[in-house]
């Protein structure tokens, strides 16, 4: 099939900063960094049995972006669909202490947080481009 597409799933976790960052990275991939070839999958929907999300993850390579070392997104994809094509644990990029900070409202983002988003997006792009 001609259409090259890659799925990106963030955990969007509500309990730590890593979750907020995972979400922002997914949106950044979708809107700025790799638009047109990134498909974001909704994790809760994927797990609740969303036909479209699961079929996609079966067919196309998918990258999991997790906010902490529990790696919920990665585990969920592998449980219901295929092995992930790549995975990221934000803790390992920005450090455990930072990632486990309080979850953040997008209204309170600072330059420091945006720098975290950038670091994680850079890594995501690296994996992404290796798959295309």
């Amino acid at each position, binding site marked *: 099939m001609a*259409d090259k*597409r890659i*799925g990106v799933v963030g955990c969007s976790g509500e309990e730590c900063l890593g979750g907020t960052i995972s979400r922002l990275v997914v949106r950044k991939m979708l809107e700025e960094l790799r638009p*047109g070839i990134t*498909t974001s*999958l909704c994790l809760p929907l994927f797990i609740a049995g969303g*036909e*479209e*999300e699961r*079929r*996609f993850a079966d067919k196309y390579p998918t990258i999991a972006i997790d906010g902490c070392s529990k790696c919920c997104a990665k585990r969920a994809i592998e449980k219901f669909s295929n092995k992930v094509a790549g995975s990221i644990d934000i803790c390992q990029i920005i450090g455990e202490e930072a990632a486990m900070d309080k979850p953040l409202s997008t209204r309170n983002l600072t330059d420091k947080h945006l720098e975290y988003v950038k670091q994680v997006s850079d890594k995501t792009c690296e994996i992404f481009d290796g798959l295309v």
Partner: protein
Amino acid sequence: MSKTVCVLPCNGLDKCAGDISRRVALKLTESEGVELICPVLLNQNKTRYDKVLEEGFLSVIDGCNTRCASKLAGSLEIPIKEKVNVSEVAKAQNIKLGAAIREDEETDALVQALLEKMSGSEEKQAESEFVVPESVNYDSFTHDKFIFKVPKSGYYFNENDCWVSISGDVARIGVTDFVQQNLSDILFADLPEIGLAVEQFDDLGSIESGKTVFEIVSPVSGTVTAVNKALENAPELINESPYEMGWLVELKLSNFEEDKELLLGFEAYFEVMKRKVAETNV
């Protein structure tokens, strides 16, 4: 005691439709338990009406499709219990309003029709005669993660992405998966008045999501006999089941044999939809 009815007309000064909203509102306030809300004063000083609005329910009369009165209520976060649109009722009654303000038999009749509609004697929707098929078979294709379905038989389509399914001389109309996927979460369905007579390709109201408004272009000619009441509280049915539970309007057919000439069957529409999906990035 029954609750107060608060009537908010658009009170438009520049056109006949606005003037009629004023006439209907004034007529309504002649009855007991009806409070008139002046849009200008409401906008200026909402607290003036806080008490009546808390006790009563809000009935909005919009003159035209700019829907100033509805928007005003919306921006002040006053929940609307009931609303009518003068232009739409006029259309259903086949009355051309135009710009000039006038008081004549025709506008009197329109005021009367609006009053009847608002006093709850709304034209009752008859029991549907449409026989729902037991099961519908679909063919589908995917684009990105989205799945697009088209029923394989029993449905006709126009190139405006509306479908029609026939049962005797009753037609059920809705939108296809293409529209549903494109709009994403559908939040509102503005459906036509019962009794409205339409030609093929006339419009049958609209549906709206956060993204855009879609105009429903009727695949057939006929008279509106029913609208899908379930959509009032669950417009998401159009997303979840566009060809079945999420139907929009029922019509009594007037000339289906001729209408059919300009409709597509499954195979032709399936191709049209594939082409459209490839062209638009959902």
